[in-house]
């Protein structure tokens, strides 16, 4: 019996390993191969649903939006619900817009530059470059997940870890989970991802009040 059991465990282990390899078949499992496999990605458009989980809330707070990316470093991170806002990075300039009663308003607050790292990291992830941020340790797991953990203790107090769940399709990220602590985490699930379908130039231009 013991021998049969061990054999079953071994088969299960092999099956799991195989499943894992299928997960990473699209992206591969080492940074250099991943980069090569997604080198063809020039642009991405994806809708997303963001779930904010808080221990104090019975159900997550849902936000919805759309992401546009164009290599190497143009990004539009737009929330459509519950509050419309747009975060733009293009030509090394970062700008933010929020919908108000008087239309879309540019926010020129001093903390915009603090968003730069966040936006630049997303651009890097879209290009399969998970290990370029020197402040984060990147671990590519066979399950098709990239786990990023802050090296700096102060940063780790804000974000415990980030988990990127990769799709089987190279260049497509299924979800991003940002774990702040066990009581608070955010999951951003991407869907309807379109790669290299062309993005209008205006998408990355500064918004005017009527957009």
């Amino acid at each position, binding site marked *: 019996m013991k021998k049969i059991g061990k054999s079953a465990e071994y088969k299960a282990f092999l099956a799991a390993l195989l499943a894992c390899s299928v997960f990473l078949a699209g992206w591969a499992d080492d940074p250099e191969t991943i980069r090569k496999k997604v080198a063809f990605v020039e642009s991405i458009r994806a809708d997303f649903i963001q779930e904010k989980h808080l221990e104090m809330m019975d159900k997550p*707070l849902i936000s919805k939006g759309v992401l546009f990316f164009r290599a190497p470093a143009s990004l539009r991170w737009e929330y459509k619900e*519950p509050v419309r806002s747009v975060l733009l990075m293009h030509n090394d300039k970062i700008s933010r817009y*929020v919908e*108000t009663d008087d239309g879309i308003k540019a926010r020129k*607050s001093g903390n915009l530059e603090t968003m730069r790292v966040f936006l630049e990291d997303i651009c890097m992830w879209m290009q399969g470059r998970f290990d370029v941020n020197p402040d984060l340790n990147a671990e590519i797991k066979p399950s098709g997940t990239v786990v990023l953990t802050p090296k700096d203790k102060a940063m780790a107090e804000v974000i415990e870890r980030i988990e990127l769940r990769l799709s089987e399709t190279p260049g497509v990220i299924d979800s991003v989970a*940002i774990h*702040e*602590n066990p009581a608070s985490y955010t999951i951003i699930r991407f869907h309807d991802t379109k790669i290299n379908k062309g993005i209008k130039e205006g998408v990355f231009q500064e918004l005017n009040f009527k957009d």
Partner: protein
Amino acid sequence: MKMTVNKKKAYPWHWKELKNSSLTGRLSGRLTVGRGALLLAACFLLFIPGCRSFAPIEPAAPALHEDAARRCRDCFLDNSRQLVQSLTAYLPDGDVRDAIAVMRIYPENRKIRCVIMSAQGIVLFDGEYDGRVSVSRAVSPFDEKKFANEMFADIRLALLPPPGRLLAAGSLLDGTPICRYARKNDEGYCEVRLSKDGGPEIRQYTKAKKLLKTVRLCYAPACENAASGGGVKIASRITIYHHGLFDYRLELKLLETESLSPD
């Protein structure tokens, strides 16, 4: 709610000016005419609200007094609720900050839990008021103790009935229904004005009757672009004005609400 402003950090030049404009500075002849003018202007701005006195109240007839007081109390939450609101802070230096606030409010014991987060969901502040303020998480610039105290004071002012003695209930000379309270622990005064046109207005004064804060509540459907309380009278919009030399305002727009079982 109040976004904290470290005036000395945010306005080093203003504070330097005021410091240099001290009596000692003047006696030592260091004060220039320009600085003197600035000092006068600052004092003028600073003390104008202090010159305000209470508007006279025509007391409600004894038979209607309790009804008038009840209508004032009706502006505030009477059951435990969770509120999700968008928060916009218009700071004294012209900066505008946006965030999402999630609050759990328990009127029966005046307990409040509040989480403020960025649009991306990163928690910037997580704290609780249960007679005293405790903060479990605060990211700069939300990590100053004064911020937490002021924020919970603002939430209590806007959403919970004034904790104190009702001094008068009646109407102003223009007919606006009003209740005036003496705040607990000799912490000044509070008024609830029930405007006929707009929503209620809550005012907080110091002991010297200087106006500190004004809160304006607006209920759906009068307030567009905001959620309604779903049949429960909950303000769809709350605007909190902080008066003084470094005045600023906070706007809260209701996104979601649900009832909670009592704590």
